């Protein structure tokens, strides 16, 4: 009886551990596949993000306050806000307090580009 119970408990516990390790197998497989690529740490989205970060720094003077175009999809609203603080800019939700309105336009080749429009009254 006890030996039977030990076998059952050991196998059932092992099953829990094996099922829980399934995600690790998936991650290892996906990681191995990525390592076969020439540039595993780069993809289109990352290149686009880095392009927008560089363009924002070039388009708006450091120390400025920007207003992020609220009609943008959340991805670019949030990325512009994130990159702004990394480029010594700050972000306001009040266009009247901003020196620039910043947006992202997608080109015909589906590449995002930063569009910064200077505002008259705001802080630049």
């Amino acid at each position, binding site marked *: 009886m006890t030996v039977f119970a030990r076998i059952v408990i050991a196998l059932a516990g*092992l099953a829990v551990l094996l099922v829980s390790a399934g995600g690790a197998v998936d*991650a290892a497989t996906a990681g191995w596949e990525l390592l076969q690529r020439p540039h595993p740490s780069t993809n289109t989205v990352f290149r686009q993000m880095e392009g927008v970060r560089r363009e924002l720094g070039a388009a708006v003077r450091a120390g400025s306050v920007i207003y992020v175009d609220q009609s943008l999809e959340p991805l670019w609203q949030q990325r512009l806000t994130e990159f702004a603080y990394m480029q010594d800019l700050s972000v306001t939700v009040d266009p009247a307090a901003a020196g620039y309105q910043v947006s992202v336009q997608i080109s015909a080749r589906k590449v995002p580009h930063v569009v910064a429009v200077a505002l008259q009254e705001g802080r630049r």
Partner: protein
Amino acid sequence: MISSALAAGCLILAGLPLSYALTRRLVLAFALGPLVAALFAASAVVAMLLFGGALGIWLAVAFALQIASASLLLRRREAVPDATTADLLWLTIPLLLPMTLAVSPPTAWDSHSIWWMHAGYFAKGAAVAREAMSAPAVMFSHPDYPPLPSAPVAALWQIAGRVDFRVAHSASALVTYSAIVLLAVAVRQALSQSSPALARAAGVAVGLATWATAPFSVTSGYSDALWAAAFVAGAVPSLFGRAPRAIDLGLLTVAALSKNEGMIAVGVLALLLILRRGRPGAWRLWIPVAAGVAWAIVARLLGATSDLRSGGRFTALLTFDPAVWGRLEPTLAALWSSAGIATVSAAVVALTGAVVLRARRRAFGLPGEGWLWGVVAAYAGCLIVTYLISPHDITWHLATSSSRVSLPLVLLACVSAATWVVVAADRPPSRPGVACAEAAARVPARPAQAPATDTVPM
């Protein structure tokens, strides 16, 4: 690639003095180093926010404090048991395989919108960080979230003088890996009276379970795996009846300072274990709780708001508002989908084991698991309440977070399952003083070639 490797080296070395002083084991100290570095970087961020100035100055102060505390500890610490070089090699290498996913592009949503964004404004100094934390435009970023996942990234960017998301990605993954290895070590140490091979295998199995619920979030800069692994690693010794050591308290502090759910889990642990009488040092579990509360106060003083605090429907919960209680069914379904099978199966194993293998478990020096399952139940209850009162659309909220925040349930369940596998499969140590003394008297000390026989009365 080179910058990521340099960043990893920096993080390991930055935490090495105190890691070594705490463990007196060089390989374990290398594994613990990134977590210690992250903890001190988080302390530097909090000091910067409170007293002003540049992050670099406070990083230097934090490092000096670490050297001072390491010097004091080096005089009296003994080497941590059951964490030899062989143990660490067996535990760390298998866990590296799923970590290969850390080479993926650094584009994860929360990593950018929360953790690396916070790192960006922390690196710019106190004035910018304070302004950002209270800015309405930054509300989406949860500026009230604790600083530990962002702090090491901010420190590296500050030292390098530039933002590099690949560095952020590798630093976040390394700190998480450090917590996962410490989880595996905690399980191996809890099973110190079983055979080393089985104890190491159990440690690896529990470590691999970190990828169970949201495998792609572990290495992509999210903080959920970090705090969940650190929490369970820090909780295991206390749940298994030992007084919390400095390392355990450090791990629990990492959890409390990595995400609000981590703070809840650490609070649940401290509350439950204070009910457990006759445990010396249990009061120390309030130190990590105090660290989490201190951050919450600092964040609030700086104007950071939490979505639950500003929009949480506590009153509606208490008045049985159907708009709140109607969210219960999808919440339970989502939690069942991510953690239900593993948790309930492990609970069944634990119950069966407690009935038929109780004495055998005692022979391995393992106490009962009531407190462990108490933490599982209490944390699950907190998750359910959080989803009920959340101001967000329930479908969106569950889809974007339930798999990640339910990870501690699976990890605790796997700790339980791993101990029962060892109890059932291994041969109990035969030495005087163990609970099954009768068996110990009959069975000679473990002969390597002897067949496994069940001699322990149930």
